[in-house]
């Protein structure tokens, strides 16, 4: 099935801005392609010459260690050169706009921009103003497509398919771009998504999303096949959405006790970094059901695949113009 799928399909996108606009076939194509990159990280020479001579810019307007390192390593493994850009050490702190910053970088001859920004739609805006490929590494509360891709890749690895699975996304849905991209990817691949959290952490327009909502974890726990525990992002919580951390943990934390009531093969995920003992207990995070570290390893393969594919998409579009 997968082979046939690949042979007929042609990848044409030079940007990866979000998963909302991608078809099921496109998402599956990225996942299949990522499969071919997995072994690079396991052999002694962890490098292929595929993007030799290409320049990737990590344009991060928000703090990030995991995603940034993952993209840097992915680009390095494909032999691209990487320019690191942080807000603090740049002209942005001198008042330069996003577009001007990007255009200046582009004037130096870059090929791919990986952007993280606190404003939703930043990646899309950028893609309209520069010729280079744009990969969204998180924009505001909108999307974080590569995180969702590595999540569904990991689920597919653990469960073969997402078709028919019930997946719970638990926590701060309102402030989570990971949750948004997850919803698009998982539902497109045939899973049922159940958002779980206190009403104060649900997005305002939640009824418009293709999901079920539960304000109680215990009410849905037993029917879940996969659970994705989101991090409580203290840095984004302005008001007080829950009375205390202990209370949140009591109602929505994934504890050893709750694991006893869940399906015995429940797949436990977390996008990291973990607040141990808050949204997830240590024994669960490190336990046999957890695929948290596999998510990180798969992130590399998925990001290599995305870097490769946007570059392919750029070549396709250049060919069409010529």
């Amino acid at each position, binding site marked *: 099935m997968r082979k046939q799928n690949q*042979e007929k399909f*042609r990848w044409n996108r030079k940007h990866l801005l979000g998963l909302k606009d991608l078809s099921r076939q496109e998402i599956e194509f990225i996942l299949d392609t990522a499969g*071919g990159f997995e*072994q690079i990280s396991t*052999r002694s*020479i962890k490098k292929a010459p*595929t993007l030799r001579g290409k320049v990737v810019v990590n344009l991060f307007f928000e703090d990030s260690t995991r995603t940034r390192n993952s993209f840097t390593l992915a680009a390095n493994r494909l032999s691209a050169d990487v320019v690191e850009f942080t807000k603090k050490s740049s002209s942005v702190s001198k008042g330069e706009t996003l577009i001007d910053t990007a255009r200046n970088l582009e004037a130096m001859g870059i090929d791919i921009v990986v952007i993280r920004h606190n404003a939703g739609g930043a990646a899309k805006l950028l893609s309209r103003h520069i010729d280079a490929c744009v990969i969204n590494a998180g924009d505001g509360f909108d999307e974080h497509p590569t995180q969702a891709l590595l999540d569904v890749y990991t689920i597919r690895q653990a469960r073969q398919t997402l078709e028919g699975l019930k997946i719970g996304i638990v926590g701060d849905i309102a402030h989570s771009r990971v949750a948004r991209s997850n919803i698009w990817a998982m539902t497109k691949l045939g899973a049922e998504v159940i958002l779980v959290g206190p009403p104060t952490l649900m997005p305002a327009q939640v009824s418009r999303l293709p999901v079920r909502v539960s304000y109680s974890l215990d009410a849905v726990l037993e029917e879940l096949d996969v659970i994705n525990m989101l991090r409580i992002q203290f840095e984004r919580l302005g008001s007080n959405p829950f009375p205390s951390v202990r209370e949140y943990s009591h109602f929505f934390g994934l504890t050893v006790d709750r694991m006893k009531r869940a399906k015995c093969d429940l797949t436990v995920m977390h996008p990291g970094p973990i607040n141990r003992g808050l949204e997830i207990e240590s024994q669960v995070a490190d336990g046999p059901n957890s695929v948290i570290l596999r998510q990180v390893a798969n992130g590399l393969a998925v990001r290599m695949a995305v870097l490769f594919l946007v570059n*392919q998409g750029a070549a*396709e579009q250049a*060919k069409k113009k010529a």
Partner: protein
Amino acid sequence: MKVVMDEKQIATSLVDLTGRIAAAVPDGTDIAVIGIRSRGEILAQRLARSLSARLGVTVPCGTLDITLYRDDINEPRGNTQPTVRSTEIGFDINEKIIILADDVLYTGRSARAALDALIDLGRPKAIRLAVLVDRGYHELPIQADFAGCTVDIPGEQTVEVRLTETDGIDQVIVE
């Protein structure tokens, strides 16, 4: 359409290739066959089987995907887009004689990419190239060590190797 090799000729040719490869491998040296995806894969499996029978040892077999090593990756031509698949080599290639198998040798660019890909996986004792058809018109200084059939076929024609496992028939045709 012209049939260059039929079922019988392919069978004879594989027996012949097996004999020549076996004769060229010194006693006590480990040998393995690696096919270039996707047509070389099946040829490699057949060669590994016949070599195992001939040498009385199990000759391991693997598949190499060369997409990441292609020299035209930034300029896709024609109607095909290169697709990344997985490399499946479940054994250590260090110190082995590797028989690199492909269906057709033409420009030599696939073989070049395969050599680079293999060397990133380890340091074999030697790499030998075995193909079913050497159609000439090479663009790189790469020659086959073992060729089932050698014919000069200019670039405007295409050579297609059909194998039972994927196409239901063993046949080499020129169009």
